[in-house]
């Protein structure tokens, strides 16, 4: 039965719209038969890890897909960033957005580096050369840009800036597999880019990640840092780690690659369905992060402007949670407000106004293999109720829900 009134909402005692939780992550799975076949192969070869044949094939196939000379697969995206820092032998300070997943910044801390938080452009949700330039100091060794939602973070501008100032540039493209900027794969901008293959991403190896670079020498250093094996030592590096991807992860990754185009098409289809509702109601809140660029559309980001929708992001989140829609407020509250960075940089708020404003407005809604067009329609129906009855909703929620 379609919900029509506020009393139908779960938050006011109505039956939740979904019996099972609806997740925001992609959670795409290959067909079972293909999975079984791949794992029979692993068992027959008895080759489980240590740069096995499937990992080497995935390195090759991804390099081809991403249009880059070298891909090195690793345990996960966080390890990829840690490996990148040591392969580039970075020191001192690295300029990085606060509007990102905590791992972006934590990886710098593990590598002994000091993050310098850069504010974002409220239109793109990304840092830019203009915002980063004033933060460069004599201690700065690199800028780590994040292509948030897979939308390019001013790579050409940042490259010009880094060249002029003699510092390194690398990118966290965890969201960006299959995305391009000016027709060029995100993998080839900067000295290096990292990707994540976490199960919530459009391309999944259960957990996993990779580093991509056109610089062959840097790739050798990356290959050296990601393991302790004497036989896999190609250069002198400051520190090493066991960041090897396994054959099980690589098998999942190779199957993911087979289905990637299908999943991207599905994401676009679901995203458009959300956007149709948005256009109909003129709320104008679904972030068109693709624009004219090629994107994987793995995130559906809803920008809640209380002046237009009538309620705040946190109010909409509370409504969604009560319906069993596990929407998420990425990236709230901004890494600079998370421990330990809030203690290390207590004044960071002053220089990050756009980060704070945006982190209080965005809501990530479900996409991916687990949902269909009908699920989208049921979610937008809930938003419709919120929008139609915003005034009354505000009054009824205000005692309990923080604005």
């Amino acid at each position: 039965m379609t919900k029509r009134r506020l009393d139908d909402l779960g938050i006011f005692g109505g039956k939740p719209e979904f019996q099972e939780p609806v997740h925001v992550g992609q959670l795409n799975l290959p067909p079972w038969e293909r999975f079984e076949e791949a794992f029979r192969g692993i068992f027959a070869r008895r080759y489980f890890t240590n740069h096995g044949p499937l990992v080497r094939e995935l390195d090759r196939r991804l390099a081809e897909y991403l249009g880059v000379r070298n891909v090195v697969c690793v345990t996960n995206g966080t390890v990829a960033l840690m490996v990148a820092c040591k392969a580039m032998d970075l020191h001192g300070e690295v300029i990085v957005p606060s509007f990102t997943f905590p791992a972006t910044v934590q990886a710098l801390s593990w590598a002994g580096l000091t993050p310098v938080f850069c504010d974002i452009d409220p239109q793109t949700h990304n840092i830019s050369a203009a915002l980063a330039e004033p933060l460069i100091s004599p201690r700065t060794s690199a800028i780590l840009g994040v292509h948030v939602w897979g939308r390019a973070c001013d790579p050409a501008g940042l490259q010009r800036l880094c060249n002029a100032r003699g510092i390194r540039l690398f990118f966290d493209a965890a969201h960006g597999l299959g995305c391009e900027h000016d027709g060029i794969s995100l993998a080839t901008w900067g000295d290096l880019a990292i990707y994540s293959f976490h199960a919530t991403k459009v391309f999944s190896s259960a957990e996993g990640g990779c580093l991509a670079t056109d610089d062959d020498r840097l790739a050798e250093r990356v290959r050296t840092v990601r393991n302790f094996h004497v036989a896999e030592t190609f250069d002198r590096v400051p520190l090493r780690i066991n960041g090897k991807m396994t054959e099980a992860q690589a098998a999942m990754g190779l199957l993911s690659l087979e289905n990637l185009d299908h999943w991207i098409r599905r994401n676009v289809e679901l995203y458009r369905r959300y956007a149709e509702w948005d256009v109909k109601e003129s709320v104008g809140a679904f972030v068109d992060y693709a624009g004219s660029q090629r994107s994987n559309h793995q995130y559906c980001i809803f920008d809640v402007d209380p002046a237009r929708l009538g309620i705040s992001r946190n109010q909409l989140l509370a409504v969604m949670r009560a319906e069993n829609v596990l929407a998420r407020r990425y990236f709230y509250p901004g890494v600079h407000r998370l421990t330990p960075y809030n203690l290390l940089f207590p004044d960071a708020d002053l220089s990050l106004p756009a980060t704070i404003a945006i982190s209080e407005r965005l809501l990530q809604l479900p996409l991916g293999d687990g949902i269909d067009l009908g699920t989208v329609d049921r979610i937008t129906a809930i938003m419709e109720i919120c929008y139609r009855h915003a005034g009354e909703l505000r009054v009824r929620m205000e005692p309990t829900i923080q604005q």
Partner: protein
Amino acid sequence: MPAFTYAGLPHLAQWAGLRPRFCDIDAFTHALDPKSVAGAISNETSLILAVHQVNSPCFVAEFEQLSATSGVPLIFDSVHGAHCTYRGRPIGGFGLAEVFSLHATKLLNGFEGGYVTTRDGGLAEVLRRQRNFGIIDDGVTAGIGMNAKLNEIHAAAALACLDGLDGLVERNCARYRAYSDAFTGIEGLDWVRYENNGEQWNYEFFLLEVDDDFPLSRDQAVEILRGENALARPYYSPPLHRSQHCPDFVSTPELPVTERLAQRFIQMPVGESLLPGDERVLAELFRFMRGHAPDIHAAFSQRRNP
């Protein structure tokens, strides 16, 4: 920490912002020597990282005592102590915490992976959030964590191995006995024993010891084995403080026992892909080396100076 161990250890200490300080080992057990550690403790020491060897647990009681009196926390690298006991109690319940591996070459094969055991419920809570970026609630972190999550596929493999563990240890033991029988009576060779003292072992390795009166060097013997596709390896050699793969900052103290033992052992092929009878074939190869030592020396030197 010891230098007669896994190559990754000093790197991992450095990732955690710590500086390794290598200590010497005991000549019989190959495990970290408590006297050497006691002499190395300073007011900058933040941790004792003791390593259980496959043939012997650490000096657990001595280290727990040292940890209590010095106030320096104690952690065990128990990768090779999985399934073993110390004074009748399973390895895993000692010190502040113990660390194990799920690498494919280990007793439990989770492709890659590992686990930490601790009696300390508070520490376990911290570890659970640390492995997930330090997140406590809805994206809010309590401190710097990382992505150290074990995925379901790797966990499924390790769980299946756990179900078959007893059989696996029995087969390891059978291979160890077959090796022992095959190598009995070859002059100049000995092997590391799993003592018959009531403790439980995993019989993971067969470690051959090349004595001074074997006519070839340890490294020559390894080279000959590898030439026959028997992928034997020098055991913990070179020791970490002499390795060019060790991080730069590490000082190189004198570790006489470590340096002597690092030249003596061969880690022989083991595991489920070793076929019955392979042990005898390998022993024959060593008898051949003994019997043809002068010719082998001549061939090696001719290869060096053709």
